């Protein structure tokens, strides 16, 4: 089937979802009110609380939520065929991610732009705050571990990408300083910066960098060496003020995001590539079954709990009108779904132009997951080739995009992990950890480093897909917690919560089921690193189910009762 047909059909479904389903959510479920005074106006401070045009805010929101995850998950999941992967991405985006991202934004706006963690404590109970911190701790640990492996794998597969990525750092700092000091419009310097970055790809092709000789001399695998170097880098990068490196690089990345999406869509349109992968792949015996593992392999791109942190953390503080939440929240999910669509097509159609033997690339789950990112870059390379860019240069371009996204996620991840460890240490009253930034940063780096390397070193470590799925489970649990908060709020306000309950129940069922199966597999294989980790996440999932069910029952029995401190104050004021 031509990829362009699939792309157009999916985009049409997204459009219908936005036009009709999000309108239903806005009117009947979240009851948005155009006259409501949003926190951006009520608490306006010119820094965090700034009323922002809805199209501009959508851009901010989308560039914050989009990254490497909606690319990697679908690139692995096409192992089961493009049909199941695409169906979950489309249905997940329209009926789960849209509800979740939009709902988290709507609830946060109604409660002075509070974060989902704070809302969980208020709406469920104090334990929910601890539960939230623990889920986020494991989420960040696994995010940092999987993205270190993704970058290391790409550096080895595409040594031409190393130099552009290294040069991106001084380039980002220079652009940041230039814009800050001149205070002139940033369009021209940004164009120059992006052109310089892509020119450095040529330099990278002339000077590919491989660490194989160094790794051999040290007696460790090349991937393990890259992983260690990456964490050493993040240790330093996470201690530098955000405005020096992280933000300018994020700034370049946000341009790259739109360029990459444009290249994929235009490449599909011009090349008219056909999908060569089977709709449903006949996977070898012993492979994980698509039901339920598909739903934790694709988290970002179908539904991702991380989005609720962005919705409630930053976007809710900038919403000009409450009704804009529909545009920003729901369309943000659609944008992420479009990136996942691009990844599926790159790995099932685009990659076909680079290799005719798709079955070999997805021969078994280990091969599929280890080669997933490489398949995506080859696919995007093929799409860019349709636009006249030399295939090898285009593949390096795609690798640079993915590595840039993943590296920025790692920077942010280690930084956030530091705060989470400090908060957990405060609760546990371990002052040595809570008060010492060096100790906290060391822990934030060493824990995911160990996860990425153990056992047997990076080159003979876990099947990457297994680690990725564990990351998916924590991401889905975060989404479950956010959906539970939204569902309680909707129920307490005497509105029909079915649109929120269906994705909540589905998500938690699939995640706990997959965790349970994996736990059995790990114990059977005698894997005493992953088995306890899986068991802990399973306990967190069970705990979340119990807390969510209790909070929902309370809300069901006493509709109309204020769920939050603000609501209670408001009600007391009315009386």
């Amino acid at each position, binding site marked *: 089937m031509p990829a362009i047909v699939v792309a157009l059909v999916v985009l049409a479904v997204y459009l219908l979802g936005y036009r009709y389903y999000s309108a239903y959510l806005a009117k009947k479920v979240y009851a948005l009110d155009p006259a409501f005074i949003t926190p951006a106006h009520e*608490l306006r*401070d*010119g*820094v*965090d609380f*700034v009323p*922002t*045009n809805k199209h*501009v805010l959508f*851009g*901010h929101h989308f*560039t*914050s939520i989009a990254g490497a995850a909606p690319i990697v998950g679908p690139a692995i999941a096409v192992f089961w065929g493009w049909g199941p992967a695409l169906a979950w991405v489309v249905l997940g985006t329209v009926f789960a991610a849209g509800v979740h991202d939009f709902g988290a934004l709507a609830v946060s706006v109604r409660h002075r732009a509070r974060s989902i963690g704070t809302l969980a404590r208020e709406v469920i109970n104090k334990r929910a705050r601890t539960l939230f911190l623990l889920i986020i701790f494991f989420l960040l640990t696994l995010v940092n571990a999987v993205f270190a492996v993704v970058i290391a794998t790409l550096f080895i597969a595409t040594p031409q990408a190393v130099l552009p990525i290294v040069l991106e750092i001084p380039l980002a700092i220079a652009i*940041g300083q230039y*814009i*800050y000091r001149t205070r002139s*419009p*940033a*369009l021209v310097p*940004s164009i120059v910066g992006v052109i310089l970055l892509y020119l450095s790809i040529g330099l990278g092709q002339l000077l590919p960098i491989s660490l194989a000789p160094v790794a051999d001399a040290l007696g460790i695998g090349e991937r393990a060496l890259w992983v260690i170097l990456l964490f050493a880098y993040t240790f330093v990068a996470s201690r530098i*003020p*955000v*405005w020096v490196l992280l*933000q*300018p690089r*994020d*700034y370049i990345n*946000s*341009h790259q995001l739109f360029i990459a999406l444009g290249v994929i869509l235009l490449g599909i349109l011009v090349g008219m590539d056909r999908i060569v992968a089977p709709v449903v792949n006949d996977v070898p015996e012993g492979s994980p079954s698509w039901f339920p593992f598909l739903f934790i392999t694709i988290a970002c791109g179908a539904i991702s709990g991380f989005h609720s942190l962005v919705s409630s953390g930053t976007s809710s503080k900038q919403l000009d009108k409450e009704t804009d939440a529909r545009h920003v929240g729901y369309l943000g999910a659609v944008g992420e779904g479009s990136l996942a669509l691009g990844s599926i097509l790159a790995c099932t159609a685009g990659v076909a132009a680079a290799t005719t033997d798709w079955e070999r690339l997805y021969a078994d789950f280990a091969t599929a997951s280890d080669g997933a990112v490489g398949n995506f870059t080859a696919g995007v390379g093929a799409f860019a080739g349709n636009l006249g860019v030399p295939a090898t240069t285009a593949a390096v371009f795609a690798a640079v995009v993915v590595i840039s996204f993943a590296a920025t996620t790692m920077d942010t991840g280690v930084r956030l992990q530091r705060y989470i460890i400090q908060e957990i240490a405060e609760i546990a009253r371990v002052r040595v950890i809570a008060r010492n930034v060096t100790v906290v940063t060391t822990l934030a780096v060493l824990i995911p480093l160990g996860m990425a390397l153990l056992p047997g070193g990076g080159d003979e470590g876990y099947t990457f897909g297994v680690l990725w799925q564990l990351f998916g489970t924590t991401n889905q649990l975060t989404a479950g917690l956010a959906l539970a908060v939204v569902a309680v709020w909707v129920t307490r306000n005497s509105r029909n919560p079915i649109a929120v309950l269906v994705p909540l129940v589905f998500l938690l069922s699939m995640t706990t089921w997959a965790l349970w199966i994996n736990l059995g597999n790990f114990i059977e294989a005698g894997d005493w690193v992953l088995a306890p980790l899986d068991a802990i996440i399973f306990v967190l999932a069970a705990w979340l189910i119990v807390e969510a069910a209790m909070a929902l029952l309370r809300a069901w029995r006493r509709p109309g009762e204020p769920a939050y401190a603000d609501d209670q104050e408001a009600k007391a004021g009315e009386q």
Partner: protein
Amino acid sequence: MRPSDVEGWRIRAAGAWRRVERFHDELFVAPWRQGLEREARRQGDVLRALLLLEAFGVDNPVAYETLDLVPQLVADLHEWHLRLGQERFGDPGVCC
């Protein structure tokens, strides 16, 4: 094409370019500037907390030397304590 037409096109193109620049700045540069302002505010908050130690019941050994700075802090004191999650500052006459 007459010179006045060319001039008209030039003005329209310059206007369009400025609009694109403005949109680009709002879309991409605003979050980055916000980050800078947030960092500046964080450093200001630390300074303010140090200067107002006595308001928290902690002796400030350099209170006499920093007294001149206090009037500069009163202007946005209300916004500061609201941001820190305190509805009232607790010192009638100074704020709220």
